């Protein structure tokens, strides 16, 4: 599975807004590059990224080729209850990757 680095604080106080970061290894081949024989490198990108907090979707992104290689996202969510924050990436050619972090909310 592609290497991913995700960052969720291990602990938070109920109601706090905290930052989540997600970084995944992927070339994001745009489909616009051409080799010196004129042949196109076919598109191969991550198209979707979803972050869920105890199963409920808190962030969803639709990616286009203009997203840089090794896509990185930083966004925020509110600490509601303890549990798992899960990350799912999917894309061209059946690309799929997941990650998960636990958070304790007091």
């Amino acid at each position, binding site marked *: 599975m592609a290497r991913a680095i995700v960052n969720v604080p291990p602990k938070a106080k109920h109601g706090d807004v905290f930052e989540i970061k997600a970084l995944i290894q992927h070339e994001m081949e745009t489909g616009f590059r051409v*080799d010196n024989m004129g042949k196109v*490198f076919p598109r191969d990108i991550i198209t979707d990224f979803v972050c869920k907090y105890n199963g409920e979707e*808190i*962030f969803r*992104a639709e990616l*286009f080729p*203009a997203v840089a290689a*090794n896509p990185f996202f930083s966004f925020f969510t509110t600490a509601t209850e303890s549990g798992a924050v899960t990350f799912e990436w999917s894309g061209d050619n059946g690309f799929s990757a997941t990650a998960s972090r636990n958070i304790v909310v007091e």
Partner: protein
Amino acid sequence: MTHGPGSTRRRFLTDAAAVGTALAVADLGLLATITPAAATPEAMRTAIRNVVGEAPVQTGKVKLDLPPLVESGNVVSVTVSVDSPMTANDHVKAIHLFNEKNPLPNVIGVRLGPRAGRASLTTRIRLADSQTVIAIAELSDGSFWSDSVSVIVTLPACVETL
């Protein structure tokens, strides 16, 4: 520039690459060129209309943070933040990024909700040329707000040609 039967354009691209001015992104061992950008400001307007429909897009509430001078168009850090209380009744539903000179006008579309607590997104994008980037936020009341930034994109002096 006329596009004759193949040879004229290929020579233009090869000549441009030799001078090091073409946007040449080399895969190791291969010289790759990017096909000329097909997007136009018109294509961007169409892409925006596909998202907002006939609703007016006002400027304000959105802050699009991009460096005015970019060292490499391949990786440009961008932050979009929207002034919103992010409550159940008043929050940002989505943030969209558009550009006018890449081959495609869409960059990314993000769905948020009141649980976000803060309407802020940071990501890294590609910009093929100096151009205008537009961020549009859709609020829970159906209104659209935007901000735009004009960016100058430079390349490192010694572009890789292997």
